[in-house]
Structures are given as C-alpha cells and as structure tokens.
C-alpha cells in the first residue's frame, strides 16, 4: 500500500488530521535542505511535499518564487530534486510528494521520471500546471508504479468538475482554499468551510486544504474542515528570513510544532 494511503488511514483511525509540509528542494542549498526535510519529518509532519524549483513559478507567490530562485542559483534541478527525495527516504518512512511544474518533468522524460521517482521512494507527484485534460501521458507513464498523481481543485472549480477531479484523484485531493497564488494570507474561514464541505461530500479520497495557511490560528480553524492541511510559504519564509548562522532545521521544526499544536487543539 502506498505510504500516502497508509498514513491517511492511520490518521483517520486515530481521528487526527494530516500536516502536509511543503519545502523547496535545495533551499537554501542541497545539504541544508536535506537536514531541514529530515528534521521536519521527525517533528510532526505527516506528508512531506518537496518542491522542484522552477524558473517561472506562475502559481506561486513571492516567498516560493524567491526560494526557487535561491535553489536554482545553487545548481538545483529536477534530477537533483529526485536525489534529494531519495536521500530523505533513506532516513524516514514519511510519505513524500514531489511537487513540480510540468516543464521540468516533460523535459526530463515522462518514463524516466516515473522510474526514477518510484526508485527514490517518492509516493506522489503533484504537477501544479497539469490539469487532468493534459495529464494522459504522465498518467500512462506512472502505470504500474506505486506513485499517485495528486490532483487539485480550486474555489472556482464548478461542481461537475469537482466530481471528476475527486474521482480521479490519487492519494488525496489538494483543495486550494482561495483565489490567488501560494502564500497569500487573509483566509475567510467561513468561505473555506462551505467549499470544503461541498468537496468532501463528493470526494472518495482524503481532502487537504492548502494556500494561505500560515498561523496556529489558521491550523485550529481549518483542521476540522478536512483531512489535512498543507503549509508551504509559512515554512519557506522562515528559511528566507533566518540569520546566516541560524539553525534552520530547528527553526522549521519549531514552526511545524506550532502548527501541529494548533491542529491538535481543534475539537
């Protein structure tokens, strides 16, 4: 059984919600990134999302844009991101989702991607600019591999399409909480609640909320609405803002602990 499925099953049986943590691969550099990712897994993260840096991250806000640029500057790439995931996998059993824009995947070669991510111990691929209509070739390449293609739904997604997305989802459905790019704050909890309920009602898979979740308060308010929360920019920002000599893994772990507390404090 895929580690993502195992994890959600286990969490459900203990009535807990998943904390999905996004971090950009190679931010601020390969070795530090590896230490941060491993520490994150030991600090209460249920699913690890490793972001492949891309030159033109049109779905991302400034925090992840800058992180991508930082990582690319140190020579990070798609192949090195797979290597990083493999290194994380050596130490932990946490499910790993590789997040990417489509072009690096397409350029690397779909069959090669499928083979190498499976060998690296990656459990899911999330391709942010690849809607199901264009995902045929990648889906075919992933056949026979124990790697889910994670799908996204948005606040603008119409009901009949939500049903289509939900049924085709693998692992979990990534429900975007708000309009805009990643890292934009100011969530309207009531809006999110309404949308999440509608999606949960038709989705046979776990539903996780992402975009704009950054505080303990967000975590507490939103955790009851879904099966998990995805936090990205709030973690990446810590890396960007830390002083040069800071213990980055510890800082990220502290933030994860706060979010975890918020989620677990929910009724």
């Amino acid at each position, binding site marked *: 059984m895929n580690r993502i499925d195992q994890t959600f099953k286990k969490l459900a049986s203990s009535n807990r919600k998943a904390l999905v943590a996004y971090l950009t691969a190679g931010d601020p550099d390969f070795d530090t990134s590896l230490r941060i990712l491993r520490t994150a897994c030991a600090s209460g993260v249920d699913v690890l999302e490793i972001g492949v840096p891309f030159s033109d991250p049109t779905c991302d806000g400034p925090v992840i844009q800058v992180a991508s640029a930082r990582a690319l500057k140190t020579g990070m790439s798609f192949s090195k991101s797979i290597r990083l995931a493999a290194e994380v996998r050596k130490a932990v059993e946490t499910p790993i989702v590789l997040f990417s824009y489509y072009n690096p995947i397409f350029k690397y070669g779909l069959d090669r991607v499928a083979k190498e991510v499976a060998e690296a111990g990656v459990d899911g691929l999330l391709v942010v600019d690849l*809607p199901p209509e264009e995902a045929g070739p990648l889906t075919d390449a992933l056949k026979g591999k124990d790697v889910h293609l994670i799908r996204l739904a948005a606040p*603008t997604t119409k009901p009949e399409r939500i049903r289509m997305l939900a049924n085709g989802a693998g692992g979990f459905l990534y429900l975007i909480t708000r309009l805009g790019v990643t890292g934009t704050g100011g969530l309207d909890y009531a809006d999110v609640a309404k949308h999440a309920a509608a999606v949960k009602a038709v989705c046979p898979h776990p539903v996780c909320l992402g975009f704009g979740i950054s505080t303990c308060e967000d975590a507490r308010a939103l955790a009851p609405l879904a099966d998990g929360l995805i936090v990205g920019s709030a973690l990446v920002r810590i890396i960007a803002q830390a002083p040069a000599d800071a213990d980055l893994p510890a800082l990220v772990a502290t933030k994860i602990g706060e979010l975890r507390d918020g989620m677990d404090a929910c009724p």
Partner: protein
Amino acid sequence: MNTKQIKGHYPDATGHFGFYGGRYVGETLIAALTDLETAWNAAKEDPAFIAGFRSMLTNYAGRPTPLDFAERLSNHVGGARIYLKREDCAHTGAHKINNVIGQGLLARRMGKRHVIAETGAGQHGVATATIAARFGMGCKVFMGEEDVRRQAPNVLRMKLLGAEVIPVTSGTGTLKDAMNEALRYWVAEVENTFYIIGTVSGPHPYPVMVRDLQRVIGDESRRQMLEQVGKLPDLLVACVGGGSNAMGLFYPFLDDPCEMLGAEAAGEGLNTPHHAASITGGAPGTLHGAMTYLLQNDEGQIQEAWSISAGLDYPGVGPEHALLHDLGRVRYDGVTDREAVEAFKLLCRFEGIIPALESSHALAAAINEAVRRPKDQAILVCISGRGDKDLDHITAYMKAHNL
C-alpha cells in the same frame, strides 16, 4: 510543400495544434478559460458582435491598412519586388490593436469591468490601455522593468491613457516575467478581470482567438495583392516573437501556394546564448499555459531570451507556429540585431517609413530573400508596427556599433 488543408483543421476541440497548445495552467484558471472559450465561441458566431468588431476596425483602428509597394527599396535590393503590409498605420501604431479591440469587446460582452495585459515593447500595453479608455474599463499593464526602461515613450502613453503600469522585477524583468506576473494577478482577481493576452500564445482559447482576431491582416493582404498586383505573393514574411502578426498574416494564405517565412530574433547570433529564437534554437515544452517551442536548458528551466527588440524578447512562441514548423509549412529563420538595424535604416532612407525594431527583423529576412529571387516574384512583408518607440534605443545601438 504541404499546402493542402491546414486551414480550419487546428486547433482541435481541446485547443491542441497537433502536439502543441492545450491548457497547462493551475486549476484555479480552468473555469475562467472555459468561460472565455464559451463566450468567444458564441461571440464569433454572433453577427452583431462581428459587425461591432468590423466597425471598430474601420472607424477606430483605421483599417484596412495599406498594402504598399516598396519600389525604391526593391530597386536598391535588386531582386524580388517587396510589398509592405502597413500595420504601422493602424491606430496606436501596430497590429496589436486588432486583437485588443476584439478582446475588449468580448470583455465588455462578458460584463468584465477590468482588463489586464502583459507587454514587452509596450505596443500591446498601449493598445490595451487605449481600448480600456475607450470602453471605460480599469486597466493594469504588467511590464518588465528592463522593458520599462527600453520603451519609455510607450510607458508614458499608457499612463496618459489612464492605465496603471506595473513594473515587474521578478525573474529577468522582461516580457516572460510580465506574463508570469499577469497570470499571478489574474488568478487572484479572476472573477472580475479579463486578461487580454497580446499574442497567439497562452492557454486555449487564446492562441486561436488571437489568431482569428489578427487574421484581418492576412485577409486584407490577400485581397489587396489580388487587386493591386494581380497575384498572390510568392513569399510572406513576418517577425515572430509570440507570433501574432505572423499568424494573422499567414493564416488566410495557409492553403495557398505561397511560401512563408517567420523571422525570429537571433540577437547576437544563434551560435551565442544571446538570442530569442524559440523555434530555431529551442525545444518543445510548456510555459504560460501552452506546449510549444521554448528556450530552455536540459533540465527544463526556461532560459533568458535576448533581443534588441523588446517585442521579440520572449523564450516561447505561439503553439500554432510550433505546428507549422513541424509540418514544414512555414520556414523559421533567425535575424540578428545587426541585420534588423540595417534593414531599419534602409526602410527609413528608401521609403520614408520608420519601422518598429520587431518589424525590422521581418524586413531584413525579406531583403535577404529578395536578393536571391527574380524580379517577377513578389514578397509581402508585414511591417507590424512603427518605430517611434525605438528611436532612443536604436540610436544608442547604432552609435555603439558604428552603424
């Protein structure tokens, strides 16, 4: 040459031009693109909409633009006769207005009160600001900070027209980054904002919609050639950045026995890293919503484009061009900065026309072809815009290169 039955066959129902095109965007934009597609499909079949579009092309944009025989230039070059499709004569000084009138009318029909646009040379930004003023819509134009510097006169024009120009500092500060930022803004404001994309690129339905709005260039040219010259051109030439003037010119001729040449910006040369020739020097991939030819490295990171011309300084190209290249229907070739500037000077001196630097690439390619062809051949080249906006930039270039 395969000249049969290309026209009308692409894109397919899902917006693919063969392998290219499609809709590679985040889920949030899917609904907006579906709505846009539905609205466009209804509008283009609505005689009242089409009549409104035609009327504005005539009375506002000043169409038809002339088809002009460049007699002195042709004699100077000594070879095939060169004809100019004078898009520089259109209102706002470039072909960009054709597309923007159409999309502006569509935005109004869809009840959108705000439009946004990306711009490189500033021509599309000016055209969008123009139509926003005309229709009383709010307008934001995203422009790379490098281009804000290179195209200062157009920035002033946009501001005069009431648009807000937003300098984009992310990435390389050029057209690609302006489009990234426009997409990011759109995804946040998608419910009340219409994104007017300026070229035959982006996610479906933009490439086909912009082509259909720009085909007036080719439709007029075809009629004018038959009326004025008595035959179709042997060769059509247009510059290709995103490729909207080229697609507009080429499309109506696709099933005719005419050769076609797309002039890409070869910058300092195709053998250098400093060029913007996505087809001649790139490889397939996805950017800004479409599968197409891109400048990219082996790991799929998009590379910086480089051209003296801000309007061609883009690492991608419209997906229909990618298909026409693969089909062998259109030949794409690079024109260097220097060749473009030399052609620019020739048109100024021999015809009294100051072309845009973008159009000068097409002109250089046309001259290059004319030299090798007999006098009974006709070459039609699209002068996609006027060059007033480029004067400072080009003067500096000529000085630096002793031209």
